């Protein structure tokens, strides 16, 4: 096991960063041809309605209009927009266009015109007669017997055998039981039964969704798109348009952020069909408002946590009942709520475990994948419950977590019970430095000095709270990553990957793994990702899989190439291959004689026994090793206004070997601030008819540099034997901490428990009023 690294575990410069900082054209919009047709969509103004008639005749006559798509002139093929592996665990409940609309902002008709203004004029000229239907605008309303049925179309079904009952608005259901939960509750000295709720949020990538398509000279459709899942885009567009996969090429250039929202096929089918119908390049970019209303969101989730605990701190029962609101379509409905259980329940040991996860349809914006993926929601519920249990027992909540948290060598029955649409995969924990994360984080925040809320006085009161976290690294026995690698004349290498860098720096991290394995410098690795014609398959950038899983594929392909290089070098150096090391861009014999990688390449390409040194490799994983983390927040609560300010935030994270420490810190800091802003300010406000009222950055507050607290990241090294050079994932876990850590800190400051997010001034102020009015 190699631990003295040359390239790995170093903060090498992110390979595309200078090009990005100098403003080079690298994103989808930068490649738009001047003569591209511009696409605009007519969106549903109603939360729930049938389209009685649609008349496009006037719109078609307007100048510049080339084509209009609506339910009457496109294939009616049921599918899911969720960019997941095939067959998807999400219900097939979506049509390219339908004769029914299911939320404000659902597709009605699309126009392609010479200019944006002409396209908008045509959108306005389309005449639609709607028959409004009663709308379902909450989880409670959706599950009420006799509620309006949102998916009453006969085609709606699930492609895998999982519970699905659209006739009662149930998009997904999953349940598990370990031991005897009720008996565990009876056995307990203390029991808690608490309800939590987390609200809608949007990912807010600064680059909104954008895609374009044109026809190549051979008639194939080339789609250039801002996506996390190019291969799933190719498959789902082929399915939706009923054309062969081979007729489609998907190119992913640089992506302006994703965070899960671009794990969805939202624009590509439309631009592809316009290209096919008009023969012209069709370009579509969401406005910011469309990004909020008509892309994807974090599923709102209601959670009930029932726990029992003995006086000595042993947890006898842990029960979690979750219901998410998946909105108008069931994108990621099953798997997000599944992860609310599978990613969080293993964290704390309990003999008796109960979990039910459900997801219901409503006539509201659609849920999807969002960094944290269900674990963000349930971390809030479970970790706040831990804080309350510790208080009941009179144990320091940090100690209580430490005593009950899973550690290296242990397993959890949850791993086997809960998979993604099927049984899970049993695993025992390999690397785990949670305990050290807690120790180092507590020291950095000054945990010991936090005091009790009862001792705090004055208008502004400070408090410290914490949360312990785990996530996973890839979906075991479902995800697959692949890479190919070949040598060039000068000893450089082309590394072609399906893995999808969406701004995270995965191209850099994966190049580091290749360079480490080959014994060359970073600048010898030329990375290309991702292009369905050019690069091998990869499921895409989601489920915290890229460094861990695609990283293993890259390490493996580099090992194969290294072996081929050693064979050539052994002929050149006239010795056995095992007597040669690859280092510093050279193949070195034991006595120091060496040949350069360039010389090896020239011999292989032009000299004796000519051949291409190169290989392709793919990997799946039988484990999903969790990264662990301990988060700490210090807050100040203004007791007169309810305003909560985060003063300091510490995130100590065990992500195994950080392949690039600076980028790992950057992932953590970005996720933490997104989480803080979700905890305090981000929320969707709706009209009584289900229209979002604050769809823009002026009224949906995401944090700026001025709003942020000082964020300290502590990377706590461990070595995950199954990962490339000891690495695990880092990108998702970090967003799960702020909700519970801040809620627990608010309690420590002023003694109120916030169980509904976001913790706006108004909510905190009201909670303080209730507390003041309650008898002491």
């Amino acid at each position, binding site marked *: 096991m190699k631990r003295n690294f040359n390239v790995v575990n170093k*903060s090498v*410069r*992110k390979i*595309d*960063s*200078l*090009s*990005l*900082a*100098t*403003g*080079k*054209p*690298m*994103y989808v*919009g*930068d490649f738009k041809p*001047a003569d591209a047709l511009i696409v605009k969509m007519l969106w549903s103004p109603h939360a729930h309605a049938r389209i009685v008639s649609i008349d496009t005749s006037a719109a078609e006559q307007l100048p510049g209009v080339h084509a209009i798509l609506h339910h009457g002139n496109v294939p009616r093929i049921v599918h899911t927009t969720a960019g997941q592996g095939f067959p998807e665990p999400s219900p097939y409940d979506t049509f390219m266009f339908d004769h029914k609309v299911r939320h404000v902002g659902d597709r009605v008709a699309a126009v392609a015109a010479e200019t944006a203004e002409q396209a908008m004029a045509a959108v306005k000229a389309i005449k639609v007669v709607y028959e409004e239907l009663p709308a379902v605008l909450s989880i409670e309303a959706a599950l009420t017997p006799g509620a309006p049925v949102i998916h009453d179309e006969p085609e709606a079904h699930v492609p895998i055998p999982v519970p699905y009952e659209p006739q009662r608005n149930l998009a997904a259901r999953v349940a598990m039981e370990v031991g005897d939960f009720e008996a565990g509750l009876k056995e307990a000295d203390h029991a808690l039964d608490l309800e939590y709720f987390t609200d809608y949020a949007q*990912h*807010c*990538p*600064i*680059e*909104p969704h954008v895609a374009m398509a044109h026809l190549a000279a051979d008639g194939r459709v080339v789609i250039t798109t801002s996506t996390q899942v190019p291969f799933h885009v190719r498959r789902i567009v082929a399915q939706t348009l009923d054309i062969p996969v081979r007729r489609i090429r998907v190119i992913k250039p*640089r*992506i*302006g*952020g994703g*965070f899960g929202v671009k794990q969805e096929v939202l624009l590509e089918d439309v631009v592809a069909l316009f290209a096919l119908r008009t023969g012209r390049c069709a370009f579509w*970019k969401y*406005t*910011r408002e469309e990004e909020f209303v008509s892309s994807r969101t974090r599923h709102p989730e209601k959670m009930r946590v029932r726990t029992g605990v003995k006086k000595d701190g042993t947890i006898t029962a842990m029960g979690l009942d979750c219901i998410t609101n998946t909105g108008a379509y069931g994108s990621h409905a099953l798997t997000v709520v599944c992860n609310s259980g599978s990613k969080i329940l293993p964290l704390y040991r309990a003999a008796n475990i109960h979990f039910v996860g459900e997801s219901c349809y409503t006539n509201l914006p659609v849920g999807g994948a969002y960094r944290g993926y269900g674990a963000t929601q349930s971390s809030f519920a479970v970790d706040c419950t831990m804080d309350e249990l510790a208080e009941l027992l009179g144990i320091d909540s940090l100690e209580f977590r430490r005593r009950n948290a899973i550690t290296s060598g242990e397993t959890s029955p949850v791993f086997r019970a809960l998979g993604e649409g099927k049984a899970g995969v049993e695993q025992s924990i390999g690397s785990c430095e949670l305990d050290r994360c807690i120790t180092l984080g507590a020291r950095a925040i000054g945990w010991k000095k936090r005091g009790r809320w009862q001792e705090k006085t004055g208008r502004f009161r400070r408090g410290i709270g914490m949360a312990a976290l785990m996530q996973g690294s890839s979906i075991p026995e479902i995800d697959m990553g692949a890479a190919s690698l070949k040598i060039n004349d000068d000893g450089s290498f082309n590394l072609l990957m399906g893995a999808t860098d*969406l*701004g*995270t*720096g995965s191209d850099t991290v994966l190049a580091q793994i290749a360079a480490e394995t080959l014994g060359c410098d970073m600048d010898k690795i030329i990375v290309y990702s991702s292009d369905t014609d050019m690069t091998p398959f990869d499921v895409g950038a989601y489920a915290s899989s890229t460094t861990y899983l695609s990283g293993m594929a890259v390490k493996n392909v580099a090992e194969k190439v290294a072996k081929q290089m050693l064979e050539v070098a052994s002929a050149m150096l006239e010795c056995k291959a095992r007597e040669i090391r690859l280092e510093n861009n050279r193949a070195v014999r034991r006595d120091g004689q060496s040949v350069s990688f360039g010389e090896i390449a020239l011999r292989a390409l032009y000299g004796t026994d000519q051949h291409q040194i190169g290989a392709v490799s793919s990997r799946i994983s039988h484990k999903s090793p969790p990264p662990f983390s301990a988060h700490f927040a210090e807050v100040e609560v203004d007791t007169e206004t309810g305003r909560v300010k985060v003063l300091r935030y510490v995130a100590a994270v065990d992500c195994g070997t950080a392949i*690039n420490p*600076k*980028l790992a*810190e*950057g992932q953590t*800091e*970005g*996720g*933490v*601030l*997104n989480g803080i802003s979700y905890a305090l300010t981000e929320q969707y406000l709706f009209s009584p008819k289900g229209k979002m009222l604050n769809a*823009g*950055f*002026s009224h949906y507050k*995401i944090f*700026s*540099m*001025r709003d*942020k607290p000082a*964020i300290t*990241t502590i990377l706590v090294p461990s070595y995950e034997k199954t990962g490339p050079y000891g690495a695990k994932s880092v990108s998702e876990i970090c967003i799960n901490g702020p909700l519970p850590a801040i809620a627990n800190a608010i309690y420590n400051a002023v003694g109120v428990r916030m169980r509904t997010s976001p913790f706006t001034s108004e909510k905190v102020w009201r909670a303080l009023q209730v507390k003041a009015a309650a008898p002491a």
Partner: protein
Amino acid sequence: MNITLTLNGKRRTADIHPNAKLSDVLRQLGCASVKMGCNEGACGSCAVSVNGRVINSCLAYAAQADGGTVETVESIGSLDHPHPIQAALVEEGAVQCGFCMPGMIMAAKALFDKNPSPTDAELAIHLDGQLCRCTGYEKIQSALRRVAAHGAPVPSPGSSTKGGRS
């Protein structure tokens, strides 16, 4: 209508619609660095310098720049000779998806041009309108601190040192 402007040191003319936004015209003139994140002046991705003042170009009419001087990030540094702000951001690992970077850099440069050693608070206030969703601003802040510690970055030829975002 026709407008003439000095764009990144070169005299350019454009035939535009009177309603055309400056951001769209700059992109048509080849400045791909002008990024469009919201089209309502709330994200800062399209920030450029017009007559020495940094503005959100999505809120300005191109006609307003007629006869003026416009600078985008293309003019302030290159792959071989990055501006010290660009170099610091790259070295600190502050560039993730990079979409906010051109605007962030133009806004930061405007501050450094008039105040070579801003405090953290001055930086945060000045960059309040520049949204980034990837980094949590931590590495951006440390990069700009590094620039501040080294004193005034050397202005690139032709760049204006007057004004800044008010």
